[in-house]
């Protein structure tokens, strides 16, 4: 390993706030931005940061996710000492099969895997954020500060701080207190759920945590408080740039819409930090003779014969003649039949909106999720 740092992506959660979108796939495998899946972001960040070995901890509906991430070639993680390893719960010789009981437990159950690489540092990531980040720069900071744990933080508006895990720091950026969703936040530095641990320190804490009967085996609830109680050195690494939690339909829609701001804060076109994904082997996009495409983010394989305004269209989407798509995100394989109208909606993969049907509402507070076929109107 070039940096002596191994990455582990926590990708086991269902993401139940994404409702029907995650009925059949785990949240990290949910489609994003026309051609990507959410997990492409941490994986591409790892590849671009020079991390060679990435473990992906999977549990919920993991068949698609497992087969997807196992092909490490997509992210260039396939050289000789490199790889992406899918780590679902395993039955072991001296124990029965245990599901992952929490984020920390998922790591604990894979101590043998981590030890086999003898890393000095362990990077913990989650599979549900959209951002570009150089983890190597964060590791440099971790080493410079001589920390046992470095937590990436991002300043959020103070009025929203109570929605996040908040890190209270001193002037030097040392974390003195961690509060999960505080009612009266003292700081606006939100944890991004990205941790660099010095492995031997974390290993010791995990072994103790496994034995603790009252633990919920969670990084935020158990491991970080234990590190603080032990007087370990915890530092906050301030991140600047685009970062978005896509845990809800509204936030997933918003993050897609942010892509319409081309070459914006999350510059997907930056060739020095590409986000890699599966190649779709589809034709380029085709824009028909009698259409209006006004402010859209469209990927290869889409066919647009109707009107599209302020929307994101994924691989294989078809918008038929006379159809209108406004302020919406159409995931791969969606077909909007002739004369149908989709407004302020997020349409799940391979869903067909029948002829003349109307879905979504321009005035609605929340985004309409369309996860079932919508019948046409005769």
């Amino acid at each position, binding site marked *: 390993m070039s940096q002596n740092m191994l990455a582990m992506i926590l990708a086991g959660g269902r993401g139940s706030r994404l409702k029907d979108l995650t009925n059949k796939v785990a949240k990290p495998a949910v489609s994003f*931005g*026309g*051609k990507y899946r959410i997990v492409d972001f941490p994986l591409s960040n790892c590849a671009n940061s020079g991390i060679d070995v990435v473990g992906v901890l999977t549990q919920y509906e993991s068949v698609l996710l497992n087969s997807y991430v196992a092909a490490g070639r997509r992210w260039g993680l396939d050289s000789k000492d490199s790889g992406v390893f899918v780590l679902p719960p395993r039955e072991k010789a001296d124990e029965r099969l245990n599901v992952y009981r929490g984020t920390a437990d998922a790591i604990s159950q894979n101590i043998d895997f981590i030890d086999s690489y003898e890393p000095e540092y362990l990077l913990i990531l989650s599979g549900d954020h959209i951002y570009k980040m150089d983890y190597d720069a964060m590791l440099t900071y971790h080493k410079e500060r001589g920390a046992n744990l470095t937590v990436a933080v991002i300043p959020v508006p103070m009025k929203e701080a109570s929605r996040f895990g908040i890190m209270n720091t001193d002037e030097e950026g040392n974390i003195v207190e961690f509060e999960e969703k505080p009612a009266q936040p003292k700081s606006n530095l939100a944890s991004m759920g990205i941790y660099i641990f010095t492995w031997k320190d974390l290993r010791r804490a995990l072994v103790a945590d496994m034995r603790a009967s009252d633990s919920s085996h969670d990084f935020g609830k158990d491991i970080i408080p234990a590190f603080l109680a032990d007087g370990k050195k915890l530092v906050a690494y301030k991140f600047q740039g685009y970062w978005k939690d896509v845990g809800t339909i509204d936030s997933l829609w918003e993050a897609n819409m942010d*892509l*319409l701001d*081309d*070459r914006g804060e999350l510059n*997907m*076109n930056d060739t020095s930090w*590409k*986000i*890699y*994904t599966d*190649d779709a*082997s589809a*034709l*380029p*996009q*085709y*824009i*028909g*003779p*009698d*259409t*209006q*495409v*006004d*402010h*859209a*983010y*469209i*990927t*290869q394989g889409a*066919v647009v014969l109707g009107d599209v305004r302020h929307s*994101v269209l994924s691989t294989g989407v078809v918008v038929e003649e006379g159809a209108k798509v406004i302020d919406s995100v159409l995931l791969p394989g969606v077909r909007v039949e002739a004369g149908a109208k989709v407004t302020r909606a997020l349409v799940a993969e391979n869903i067909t909106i029948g002829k003349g049907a109307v879905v979504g509402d321009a005035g609605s507070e929340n985004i309409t999720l369309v996860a079932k076929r919508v019948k046409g109107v005769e």
Partner: protein
Amino acid sequence: MAKIFGIVASSAPFIKVEGMQDYRPIAAFSFIGRYRIVDFPISNMSNSDIDYIQVYMGNKPRSLTEHLGSGRTFNINSKRGKLQMLFPQGSSVNEIYNTDISAYMENLEIIQRMHQDYVVIAPSYMIYTQNYADLVEEHISSGADITLLYHRVDNAKEAFLNCFILNLNRQKGVISLEKNIGKAKNRDIFMDTYVMKKDLFIQLVQEAKKESSMFTLADIVSASAADLDIRGVAHRGYFAAVTDFKSYFDANLALLDHKLAENLFRPDWTIYTRTTDSCPTTYCTGASVKNSIVSNGCLIQGIVENSVIGRGVTIEKGAVVRNSVILSYAQIGPDVHIEGQVVDKWAKVIRAKEIIADPAAPGYIRRSDNL
């Protein structure tokens, strides 16, 4: 199934595409944005379960070599398969010596070592899809010595010039091959695609060499028509031959007919190409795009009509692009008006505000040029 290996031939020296060919062989020409012409013969072979493929590289092979890479892109079995690039040295004395036969003679040992019984030879300057496994089956059951693929056209007077035509008898037996010099409308254009046994192929190559240093495979096949059972099989569907600049331009724009494009790109017959991991394309407010094929990674702020846009192209505010083929990473500056052009890769058109040609006689803007 019969054991088959594939040969993707380089285009003959008498086929010249002004401008573009200064930079790469026709095989490496960009096609409707994200493809290269060579993707078609290789994907046809790969989809026909032909996993041993020889590609003859031709002049200026850099771009083609980079594109083909390890061959992994083309879904060729990584253990029981191989995409082999062959670099014939050719002759610098006179390019009339650089025939396909001379390239095969140079690599005869490699061809002799192939352990498959049959060979399919396909061109790298023609665009079509064809199941070669079916074609070989048809070849075997017909009992023919050689099977040639052809396409019936009704515009041979003005198109497909420099291609060969097949003169067929009523039983689809090949009487002879001759160059199309535009004498008649309705012709059976030879698609430069052959099926035969490997041993016969080697024999023909050696005979051609003995006959004349200028003989091509088509010449020796035509000369053998009296002695061998040579049959034509008709091809249906999209077919284009890039034999000059105009035909390259036309082949691209023809696929703006989306029904035709769907006929060429069927879900059960993937055309593979190398990905560049470019992001989706952004259509800005105020942009207007009609009847166009657009690749990923573009930023479109202007007007685009009846055009093919390659990857990573920027079309700035007030720019107008009509009836044009814009290759990857080109930039069309603010208020620039372009019609009837092929703009080659990395070209920047900023100062020249109006470059307009009749699509019947399209213009060309050189690779990496600044205008």
